[in-house]
């Protein structure tokens, strides 16, 4: 059902003639900062959660089955606190076995959403030390799902068995 309410231009009314009146009151709203991130598809990859809200972001990858490393996307929603720009960091929760190299790279920006785009498009060799994968950005949202936000690609050299519970962590702050 469609509703179409009447509108009037209050700047040209003669309220005395119209038997009416006009008053105003002050009001305020208070908005919280938001910083949430996840990796899509959600059933294949986990990501570190940011501050501000609980979400599925932060869950580890499922114990069974491997991720489709060719089609992973970073989604996020961000509302700054005190105009402070955010970054997205990437790291691992455990050391990568000696000799093995895992690199991640943003290779594409998706469609939809409304956000400042400032990716680090260099290959990042993962370690337990956090590195910036998206540089400073202001408020925005990427849209949810595949083809939204930033497409990431992993490159693995000299593959070895990763320790149990190994995770790649993405953190927005």
């Amino acid at each position: 059902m469609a509703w179409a309410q009447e509108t009037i231009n209050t700047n040209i009314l003669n309220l005395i003639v119209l038997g009416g009146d006009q008053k105003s009151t002050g009001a305020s709203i208070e908005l919280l900062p938001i910083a949430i991130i996840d990796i899509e598809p959600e059933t294949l990859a986990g990501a570190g959660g940011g501050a501000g809200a609980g979400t599925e972001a932060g869950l580890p990858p499922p114990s069974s089955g491997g991720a489709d490393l060719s089609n992973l996307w970073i989604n996020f929603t961000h509302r700054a606190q005190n105009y402070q720009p955010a970054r997205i960091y990437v790291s691992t929760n455990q050391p990568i076995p000696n000799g093995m190299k895992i690199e991640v790279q943003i290779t594409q920006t998706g469609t939809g959403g409304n956000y400042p785009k400032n990716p680090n498009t260099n290959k990042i060799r993962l370690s337990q030390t956090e590195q910036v994968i998206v540089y400073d950005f202001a408020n925005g949202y990427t849209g949810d799902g595949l083809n939204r936000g930033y497409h990431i690609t992993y490159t693995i050299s000299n593959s070895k068995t990763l320790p149990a519970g190994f995770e790649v962590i993405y953190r927005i702050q």
Partner: protein
Amino acid sequence: MKNIYTIILLLSFSSLSFGQLLPGTLDVSGFPNIVESINDLVMEAGEDANTVGFESNIDASLISFTLDPTVAPILGIPLTSSALNCSLNIFRYSVYMHTQNAPQNVEIQAKTTMNSGVRFPVNILYDNLLVRPLGPRDLTPENGGGYITIPNNGNAAIKVFEFVGCRQDIPIQFKVKASALAISGASNFDIFYTVIGSIL
């Protein structure tokens, strides 16, 4: 002189009026302070934050509209009270709302419910008439009582509800849908209510 006043009063009492609109006064009380809580936030990364929204109390503001007392010209002597004028003069009133200086990327909505508020006076002769030209002294919300987005522009104030006869303590509830693009923290703004009378 006393006889003149008596005649004027008798004339005023002699019949219900649905003709010329009389001046009235709108009163607004309450300072809506609408606060987003952790449970109001978007839970799915990537979605905009305005998919959720959060509400004020149902009576964040109370508004009343009553006809002014009638005062004798020049002499300034009260002739009829507001209650008496509201009893004898029944009009239809439409209430339009707009905001001023509302924050960007924030949608502010308002609503009231069917027959909210209180008739003023509570019982009058009009209510018992077999034929009531403007219908019962009821309040009818627009949009079926659902939320209506309030424009941040006095050039396009939007109708939120209408009522017949004077009415007091009409509760207004607000809902805010704030995009992730909006600035966090507190923002102050003004809410305007404009009442327009009608004899139809």
